[in-house]
């Protein structure tokens, strides 16, 4: 593949006002902070650019433009200009007429926004014409397209809000065909298809022949990045589960101490979940600051519900064992004398032996603690299941979410199935149970090759 250096593809994102041009930019740049989005006309009144990189090199420059609002009047004005310069109309083509308009005082008065759009489109290689298919095809849209086509740049319609109904998709497609725009791209900026971005660039490559190599490479790169992002996300969730499963808290044997230790355990686990949610959000480039009205962009009864409420478990359909205690002691399993050895499968013994070298003294201390009548508090299996399900659902929601989406993240409990709902916990979690040093929250935290291997193999099972 040969790619000429410095041959950056310039794309102007144009369209009627309030159709989601800035949203498209946000989703394509994965940047929730780009521009300003609101449901009213003229939210964007200047041209704002963003650069997309391919392997660290600038490949595409996208320009968000103000919405066209006065297409009918502008077309009138262009016709008026054309009529006044009729004398040499034989050499008067589209781009020239637009250039002439840009030199008039009106391009800085009533038609300032429109002038900015046209000026940018003339500078670019092509225009992406964003359409809100919830809007009917009206005369103003046709006039807009007529003006834009005078710029002499290829126009690629982007059909936004594909998921909404009722819509005017068929009408739009027919109208676009009549204008000679046969290839359009369906792309929902708020909830793009999983491979929506890749397909968008692939389709663009069909239209913009001279930049096909760049666009194809960009599409492949995005595919790769998406896969990597996903792999990392699964590893992050696996690490969360290992961390909470391995966490142990030692306390004296009386009931009062066990109660306060349980409260501490609950706090630690809650905090770890928050941390994990934050990390996943950041990983998918959604920022806390972009959701000023909410403590977290996650809402809905199930998410608002505390981890340690039995009802939260029931809602997810998790079977609660007989030993599960409600109330102040919820979610804690009190381990009296076993030191983790009661779980005794071969792998566990292996794990313990593995830990011996690196932590003979710590293991010894634990045994000593046992003999002195101390208890170890660990997290109940049911809570681990709940954490697993919640995290996987969040991941699902984030993958399907566009960076222009302004609504809080909602989770769907109907789709919950798989290992975490019923069935045995994965053996990596059982192994982590015996190795308190695997927990990030432990004061003797050790992150070694074995822990990494367990995280990776657990992540493979989560998929």
């Amino acid at each position: 593949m040969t790619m000429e250096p410095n041959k950056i593809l310039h794309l102007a994102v144009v369209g009627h006002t309030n159709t989601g041009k800035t949203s498209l930019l946000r989703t394509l740049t994965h940047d929730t902070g780009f521009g300003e989005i609101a449901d009213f006309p003229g939210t964007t009144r200047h041209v704002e650019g963003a650069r997309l990189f391919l392997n660290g090199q600038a490949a595409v420059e996208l320009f968000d433009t103000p919405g066209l609002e006065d297409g009918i009047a502008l077309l009138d004005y262009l016709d008026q200009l054309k009529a006044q310069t009729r004398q040499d109309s034989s050499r008067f083509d589209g781009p020239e007429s637009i250039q002439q308009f840009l030199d008039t005082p009106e391009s800085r008065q009533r038609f300032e926004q429109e002038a900015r759009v046209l000026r940018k489109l003339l500078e670019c290689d092509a225009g992406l014409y964003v359409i809100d298919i919830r809007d009917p095809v009206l005369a103003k849209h046709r006039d807009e397209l007529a003006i834009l086509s005078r710029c002499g740049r290829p126009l690629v319609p982007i059909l936004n809000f594909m998921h909404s109904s009722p819509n005017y998709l068929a009408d739009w497609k027919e109208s676009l065909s009549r204008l000679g725009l046969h290839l359009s791209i369906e792309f929902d900026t708020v909830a793009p298809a999983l491979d929506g971005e890749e397909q968008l660039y692939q389709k663009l490559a069909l239209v913009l022949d001279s930049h096909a190599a760049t666009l194809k490479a960009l599409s492949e790169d995005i595919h790769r990045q998406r896969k990597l992002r996903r792999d990392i996300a699964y590893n992050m969730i696996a690490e969360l589960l290992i961390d909470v499963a391995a966490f142990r808290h030692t306390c004296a044997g009386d009931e009062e101490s066990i109660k306060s230790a349980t409260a501490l355990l609950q706090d630690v686990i809650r905090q770890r979940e928050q941390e994990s949610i934050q990390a996943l959000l950041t990983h998918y480039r959604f920022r806390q600051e972009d959701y000023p009205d909410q403590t977290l962009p996650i809402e809905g009864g199930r998410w608002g519900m505390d981890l340690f409420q039995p009802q939260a478990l029931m809602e997810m359909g998790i079977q609660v064992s007989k030993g599960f205690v409600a109330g102040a002691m919820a979610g804690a399993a009190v381990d009296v004398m076993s030191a983790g050895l009661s779980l005794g499968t071969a792998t566990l013994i292996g794990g313990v032996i593995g830990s011996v070298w690196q932590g003979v003294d710590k293991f010894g201390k634990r045994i000593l603690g046992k003999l002195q009548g101390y208890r170890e508090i660990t997290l109940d299996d049911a809570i681990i299941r709940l954490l697993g399900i919640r995290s996987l659902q969040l991941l699902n929601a984030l993958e399907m979410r566009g960076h222009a989406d302004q609504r809080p993240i909602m989770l769907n409990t109907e789709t919950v199935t798989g290992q975490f709902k019923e069935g045995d916990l994965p053996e990596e979690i059982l192994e982590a149970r015996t190795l308190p040093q695997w927990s990030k929250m432990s004061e003797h935290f050790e992150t070694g090759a074995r822990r990494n291997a367990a995280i990776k193999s657990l992540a493979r099972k989560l998929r």
Partner: protein
Amino acid sequence: MPQHSLKDYWITETLRLREAHWGPIEDATLLHQIRHSQEPVSDKIIQRAVLMAKRDGLAATIDKWRGNARLAFWAMALLAMLTGIGMAASALGTAHVNLLLALVALLGLHAITYLFWLLSFLAPYHGGTLLGQAWLWLGKKLARGPDATLAPQAFINILNQNNGLRWLLSAISHGIWVVIMATGIITLLALLAARQYTFGWETTILPASSFVSITQGIGFLPHLLGFSIPSADIIQQSSGLQTAGPASQAIWSSWLIGAVMVYGLLLRLASLLLCLWKTRQAIHQIQIDETLPAYAGLVDRLSAHSEHIGVDAPAPALQTARRNTHPARAPAGSPLVVGLELSPRAPWPPFTLPATVHDQGKLESREQRYQLLAHMSRQTVPALLIVCDAAQTPDRGTLHFIADLSNLAAHTDIYLQNSPGKAENRLPLWKERLQQAGFGLEQLHETQKTLPPWIQAN
């Protein structure tokens, strides 16, 4: 792709541990150097770590630990030399040497540990050889400071990736044994050169012939390298308290040294070479796993996806259309109803119109707009009702046109039709924009009930 050294990986892993334990390290200035290079992310992670290590002196810490590890190895080698000397001296402790006991003293411990090493391949790997781990432990004990303990941990982690640690620790162990065996052999030679020994074998229950086969079996391999094997006669003569002649003693010492050389030194040397080769291979295969959660934040920051370019010019103030409040001429003709930018699917008229009203229908094209404006310019309309779709966005062009129309009518009312099935309802937005354009709230209607009497059909 640039080839990274073991030290680069080591530094990267040490930094990963450091950041996992104590949180992220400031790297903004370093990132600028790396972000826009074309290398894969894993290379960028290493680059960042190497640059950071240079900046923060971590490389020096690692070098120090490497020095310590080397020191630990030499200390153990010194011990090994003493062991080798002691071993040989105890094997030849008396003037009359019991051959089998001497052989056990020289090779016994070595054989047992070597057997353990071989058996360790049957079990899944968890630790390493005892000597190898002692070396690691010693290296750790020599280190001081928090980073210093991370360095060996990181070393273990990266080598563990391809089982490299097993081979390295094995190599250390074999290396120590090579030293023991070599010094043992030198000591043997020195003792044999300086003192007079007699060799023999003793037994209470074994037949003499078994010694012949044992001796010749052990001597077979060394014999291939030129060491002598005692003949059956010499072996027979050396039993119990009898002693063969001085020539036989020389043959026996050659046999003994040959056995230690082949089964001790050469075996360990061959194993050492194998382990070193395997270690090298494992080191070559070390990779950075960029999917580890620890690198999650980094991957994103290292591979720039997009950046802002900025704006062309400051945004102008929001433009608003304004209507003239007083039409110039006296009204004439009948009141007028017009639908503006309604969906082609919307029914028309929206409700039954009285016969006195002039129905202009849905305005679609530019030409229709001209006709209406021309019609209204001829005579000012006494009353005008504009029907709009509240689900759509009230853009500047539409507002301008509404203002233009209302300038040509004595009274204007606007009916904001609210299609019930639609998700979007931009009614408040319409009201706001129309008010900015100079319309009063009483002119804007959401329901049919509030419309002026002239439009109400009876």
